[in-house]
């Protein structure tokens, strides 16, 4: 019966995207008249009882397993043990890099129909139908899950975090250990950056900035607003910016509250990855740039003049 939410943590904090998934799972459990259980895998110092503030009463913590996220097989095995132990019927993931490896394995293991990239709660009046993004954000599909067990992987920034009050009970969960077939040799992490997929504000720039030496103002604007930085594909292809910043149809698809595009023309493949952003701002010197058609706010002008003035105005605001 219950809804289980796979809840991820990083650096001893519950991830923001997982809090979205928790809020989604709690809301769905309410609709189904059942309980929402958060499942946390791996040791963490994150205060798990605080998940109560998001409507969770019970946290199941598989804390004795030091399994690595890349070991998708073990991860799916652990989740399925917890699902069986609590006789859960619905499993919620946030559609993160980890979920992309684990949720489909779990789907096979449990013969549970999977919808990835969900953007709304299931429509229960129409069997069990979940809206998800398709065509790289250019459309949505309503997908019905036919199997008794169901898995939903929720897009990031698609569901609002809902706060309530209370503390959750944390129950340790012991799982059978599974030997890993994956040997990790090296991990490189860029510390201190805001994760692009999770960011609620993104400052993005394109070929209009002429060269990597001109990104100072982009980074400054991002820092002032607590935003992540992104770029168009040719910018990443020319190695002006790291590849993981590339957004669009063949890069990362994002849906922040605010997306500011500076010197990006707005090609259809670029728009595909960013058009679900809630507010889009375009700064481009060409009034014919296609991006203006997809924008909420626009400035027709030279980025090298406009952006420094914006930075000044925000600094004034912060005083």
């Amino acid at each position, binding site marked *: 019966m219950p809804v289980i939410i796979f809840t991820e943590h990083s650096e001893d904090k519950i991830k923001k995207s997982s809090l979205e998934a928790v809020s989604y799972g709690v809301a769905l459990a309410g609709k189904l008249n059942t309980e929402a259980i958060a499942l946390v895998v791996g040791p963490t110092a994150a205060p798990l009882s605080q998940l109560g503030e998001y409507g969770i009463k019970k946290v199941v913590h598989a804390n004795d397993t030091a399994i690595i996220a*890349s070991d998708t097989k073990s991860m799916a095995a652990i989740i399925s043990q917890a699902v069986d132990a609590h006789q859960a019927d619905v499993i919620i993931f946030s559609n993160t890099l980890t979920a992309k490896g684990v949720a489909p394995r779990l789907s096979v293991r449990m*013969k549970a129909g999977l919808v990835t990239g969900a953007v709304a709660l299931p429509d229960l009046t129409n069997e069990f139908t979940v809206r998800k993004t398709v065509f790289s954000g250019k459309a949505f599909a309503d997908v019905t899950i036919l199997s008794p067990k169901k898995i939903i992987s929720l897009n990031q920034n698609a569901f609002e975090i809902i706060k309530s009050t209370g503390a959750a009970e944390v129950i340790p969960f012991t799982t059978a250990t599974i030997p890993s077939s994956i040997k990790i040799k090296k991990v490189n992490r860029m510390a201190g950056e805001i994760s692009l997929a999770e960011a609620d504000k993104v400052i993005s720039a394109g070929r209009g900035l002429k060269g990597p030496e001109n990104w100072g103002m982009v980074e400054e604007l991002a820092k002032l607003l607590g935003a992540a930085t992104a770029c168009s594909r040719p910018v990443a292809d020319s190695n002006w910016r790291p590849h993981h910043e590339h957004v669009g149809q063949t890069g990362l698809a994002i849906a922040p509250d605010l997306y500011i595009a500076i010197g990006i023309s707005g090609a259809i493949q670029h728009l595909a990855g960013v058009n679900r952003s809630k507010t889009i701002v375009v700064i481009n010197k060409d009034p014919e740039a296609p991006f203006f058609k997809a924008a909420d706010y626009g400035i027709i002008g030279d980025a090298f003049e406009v952006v420094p003035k914006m930075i000044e105005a925000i600094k004034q605001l912060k005083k």
Partner: protein
Amino acid sequence: MKILVCISRTPDTTAKIAFTDNNTKFATEGVQWIINPYDEWYALVRAIELKEKDASIGIHLVTIGGAETEPIIRKALALGGDEAIRVNSIEEDPYFIASQIAFVAKEGSYDLILTGKETIDHNGSSIGAMVSELLDMPFISLATKLNIEPTQAIVTREIEGGEEEAEISFPLVISCQKGMAEARIPNMRGIMAARTKPLAVKEPQSAEKLTTTKAFVLPPAKSGVKLIPAETPELLVQLLREEAKVI
């Protein structure tokens, strides 16, 4: 060493997205079809690059689709696949598709199965991981680099905020993304050779369907852009704070 590359047919990235039959079907009229970019640019081309270093590697392709997918299969053969298998089904449920790939993979006993990170139409990003579970193999998602040694693969994959390098013994499944390979286009010799390369057609085996798509919806159109004069970006900042409430 045998590599199986999973190939999907998708609409071109500039295709107009519209629906027919009461919004239950993608409107295919006038649509150009391509090999799903992730399958072609990263999975297939990396397999070809590996074969160029070691000619004993065999590259097989698999597609689940009707006869209309054959032009893109021929294109993939022209790029450098050795032979192809088409499972004759237009079913779209990921579990069903993964089951068909797993049947093909079992018969061919491959060391390495490659997929793209997702298709640009379904955006499911689930086939590779499903195949790995069906075959009880390790799965590496979102790989950006792949090298092979006699008994194992060295794979770099994207993780949140960085990357991770791992060693995994064969057989395994990998989903591929940007960074894997250098782009290339088929040459005349490849195109000629592709005409006579084997393309076997198999009927699907029975497998369950766990999902079905009921309808499609287009997002609401934007109401129009509010333009702010270039001389007064402070006005934009004010609107973002007071009207859009995003800063």
